């Protein structure tokens, strides 16, 4: 795979705005990641195939933020969503609604504060 084909933040962001969640599958160890890397975090291989990830998943953990940084208004939830892929991909996202650990949620929106990140609910 050439460098030009490597999944970038720009391409990942563009896809997310279109409602798609792009990830990468390692050609060596099959680890799947849900945000772009230049090499596999598990084995260091650079051969990473860009793939479409499921847009639904299970809440792996979540927190409600009541003291927020500038640019954010407190009282929101951030979660790690398990996308239930074979390679174990998870993604950090905004979580709308009341879902708890173990509940199924869907990619329903994006949040755009400086960058674009997924919103599940």
């Amino acid at each position, binding site marked *: 795979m050439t460098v030009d084909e490597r999944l970038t*933040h720009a391409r990942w962001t563009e896809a997310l705005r279109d409602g798609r969640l792009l990830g990468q599958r390692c050609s060596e160890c099959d680890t799947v*990641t*849900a*945000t772009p*890397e230049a090499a596999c*975090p*598990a084995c260091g291989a650079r051969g990473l195939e860009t793939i479409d990830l499921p847009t639904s998943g299970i809440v*792996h*953990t*979540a*927190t*409600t*933020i*009541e*003291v*927020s*940084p*500038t*640019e*954010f208004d407190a009282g*929101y939830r*951030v*979660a*790690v969503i398990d996308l239930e892929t074979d390679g*174990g991909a*998870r*993604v*950090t*996202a*905004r979580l709308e609604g009341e879902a708890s*650990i*173990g509940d199924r949620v869907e990619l329903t929106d994006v*949040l*755009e*504060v*400086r*960058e*674009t*990140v997924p919103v599940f609910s």
Partner: protein
Amino acid sequence: MEGASVVGVGMTDFGVHDQPLPELFADAAFEAMDDAGADADVIDAFYLGNAMGGQTESDTHLAPTLASHIGLAGIPCSRFEDACATSSNAFKHAVEAVRAGTHDVVLVGGVERCTPSTGLETPEMTAIFASASHRQYEQPTGLTFPGVFGLLTTRHMHEHGTTEEHLAEIAVKNHANGTLNSRAQFGKETTVEAVLDSPVVASPFRLLDCCPFSDGASAVVVANAAGASTLTGDPVTVAGVGHATDVIPLAEKADLTATQSARDAASQAYEQAGIGPADVDVVELHDCFTGAEVLAIEALGLVEDGEGGPASARGETALDGRIPVNPSGGLKAKGHPIGATGAAQIVELVEHLRGEAGERQVEDASTGLAHNLGGDAGTTIVSILEVAR
């Protein structure tokens, strides 16, 4: 390879300091140099930990600036930044430098101001702390550092049944320890009820589960045998230092409750020291939030995985418990001026190993362990100190 020892230690009170960084740091540095019996001319190099002076105070290139202020201009000066593990990384490099004979005597320091004395209020400082999470995939979700550990701890609660009461017991213990430490930011006891009544910062953490914003400085003098022979301080042996990292962002970590970098760094340090968790007498660890102490005592092998909450509630980590953890009060009660924290852990251990810790002295302590974590446990440095033989 030569041995390394800590020959002198010093720190300021942690709390609110309305002084420029050079003046704040001088108070800790001179105390450490005097404790070591080290005049300016025997210090061969200066390794500084400062995490965010550029962001908080528009102050960078700080290592030579601080060195100048205390009469050390000329020697090699280096600033390290590895989020909350900043001055432990400076300490590690100093230990490596004296072991190699590159330098004989190194001053290691940490300094930071995080309180509104910087002119920054909670939202601004929360944003600056959050800069240690992933810029593209975490910060834009609004994730904060209480939130990072909230995610890890919420998962731990789910997997192991850890409760908010367990977490509160850790705050109670560390506040109690802090009352015995005149340098601690919080000198008052608290109760489980008070913790659980305090407002949520990031669930499951309430205000009293969280370390405060702190200003402060710490310093230690590290030397090899040749260096120590020219000094008068009571040396404590550096038996091992481990340093490991883990995948960032946190969603890509294999196991959110493992803090794998702490396990790897601890393995390295235990192996270097030729000991295991059961041989440790006193621990200073990175309790930025109560849940972080649960994860840390498990990662260090002090309790079984999943037992961190109940073991803490049973008093196993109390000052008079099986394995005293954070006799200083920890980050929770002593305070957490980011870049000063790692070196301050070494200060506390040295005092215990010298038998100079006063009311909070862990009896007959001969082996101490420091655990300093950076970011979302993306970095952990574990240092083991022993009474000099």
